[in-house]
């Protein structure tokens, strides 16, 4: 009897030791995907580095100009890539800007406040500032995605105040995208055809409840792991900066993020590339202008020539 109890206890202890070994070798802060990324389709070539006067939290690029919002300065700065000149673009009366959208003719800049309900339309040519209603861009309210007055997408509902559906918008005039931070479900909205398409990034991470109630509010739980952190688009492709660990990264020991490229036409995965490290800073924002990919690393902006091989 004693011998059996000893064997069962030994098995019990062995199981715990095996679990301990597994937990020690685990990657708790990253989502691991079973896929391997394809790096043979794109090549990056560094062009130049631009220092902004603070951490760039929002970045857009159009017509050879890079626009970066620096919260500590409460201003949007612009950098002209031909003249190599940095100027203050907008420092009007807005306590915080959370989103910048640019009209197709690049004459009007739409600056969203923290509620995303009050929008300031700024026309730099005339220096005209207006308060406008949003009738051209996707917005999110909790788990619902709206365009104008209609709901175009409803995300999985959790008791989390909508935190699990948190994400960001990417606008390519014809298409508008909503990319969630915590799962792989991308929403693509065709403004011309008024059609909604949903597709998954290569990791296929399902939506999960990432919030824990704390009194009257919801806070992010330690299980909230970023899948997609920022993105940009051009006429043909969507570029998503993903923190998902693919199998090639697991094997090579690379722990940085990768940019995954998707065809806008058929939403298929087209390849990936890695951004080089810069002063050990994370990439906060991406923008695409012609064949140039722009990445904001905290207060420095790096320009790359992106070649499709």
């Amino acid at each position, binding site marked *: 009897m004693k011998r*059996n109890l000893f*064997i*069962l206890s030994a*098995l*019990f202890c*062995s*199981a*715990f030791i*095996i*679990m301990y070994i*597994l*937990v020690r*070798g*685990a*990657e*708790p802060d*990253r*989502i*691991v*995907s*079973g896929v391997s990324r394809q790096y043979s389709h794109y090549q990056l070539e560094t062009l130049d580095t631009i220092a902004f006067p603070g951490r760039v939290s929002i970045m857009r690029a159009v017509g050879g100009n890079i626009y970066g919002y620096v919260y500590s300065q409460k201003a949007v700065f612009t950098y002209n890539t031909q003249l190599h000149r940095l100027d203050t673009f907008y420092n009007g009366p807005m306590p915080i800007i959370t989103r910048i959208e640019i009209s197709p003719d690049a004459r009007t800049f739409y600056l969203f406040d923290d509620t995303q309900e009050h929008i300031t339309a700024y026309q730099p040519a005339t220096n005209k500032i207006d308060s406008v209603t949003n009738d051209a861009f996707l917005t999110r309210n909790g788990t619902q995605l709206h365009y104008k007055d209609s709901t175009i997408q409803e995300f999985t509902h959790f008791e989390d105040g909508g935190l699990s559906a948190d994400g960001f918008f990417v606008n390519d005039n014809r298409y508008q995208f909503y990319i969630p931070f915590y799962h792989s479900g991308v929403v693509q909205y065709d403004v011309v055809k008024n059609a909604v398409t949903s597709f998954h990034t290569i990791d296929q*991470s399902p939506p*999960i409840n*990432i919030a824990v109630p704390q009194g009257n509010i919801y806070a992010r739980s330690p*299980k*909230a*792991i970023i899948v997609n952190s920022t993105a940009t688009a051009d006429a043909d492709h969507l570029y998503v900066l993903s923190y998902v*660990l693919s*199998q090639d990264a*697991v094997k090579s020991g690379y722990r940085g993020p990768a940019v995954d490229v998707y065809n806008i036409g058929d939403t298929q995965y087209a390849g990936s590339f890695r951004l080089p490290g810069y002063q050990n800073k994370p990439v906060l924002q991406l923008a695409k202008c012609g064949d140039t990919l722009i990445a904001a690393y905290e207060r420095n902006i790096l320009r790359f020539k992106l070649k499709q091989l």
Partner: protein
Amino acid sequence: MKRTYIVFLIVGLLSLLFMYAAVVKAMDYGLFLSDMSKSPLLVKYDKTLLGPGVLGVEFLIVALLSFAATRKSGLFLSFFVMLLFTLYLSTLYFFYTNIPCSCGGILGKMSYPAHIAFNGVFTLLGRQGYYCIKRTMQNEINSSMPVFLPR
């Protein structure tokens, strides 16, 4: 006699479970490997070795449970493997956000709490089966021993 039936029932259930789990995994082996490679706990380990290892152990348990001579070892091993699976799933469910389950078929469709409870029940069945078979064997030995009565 009653204990023999209990052992028979437990061995049957465990054999059915491990056979079903192994066959479902083997039938969609690619998906099984893909699900395993998503696990944050198994990042460092070679899935091409781990996959056949898991399948091999599951088939081995079924084989051990099938023969009277090896049934005790089968129950031991099934208790150990079910305990490992329960701990593995519980760790993923309670501490990690990415919780891929490599179990296919009905098992993979269960909610995580239900799956953990299910595994827990089968872990206890393995242990109980071992105790029952041990006592049955002892009774058989005792009953077959000659009894010497004083004249």
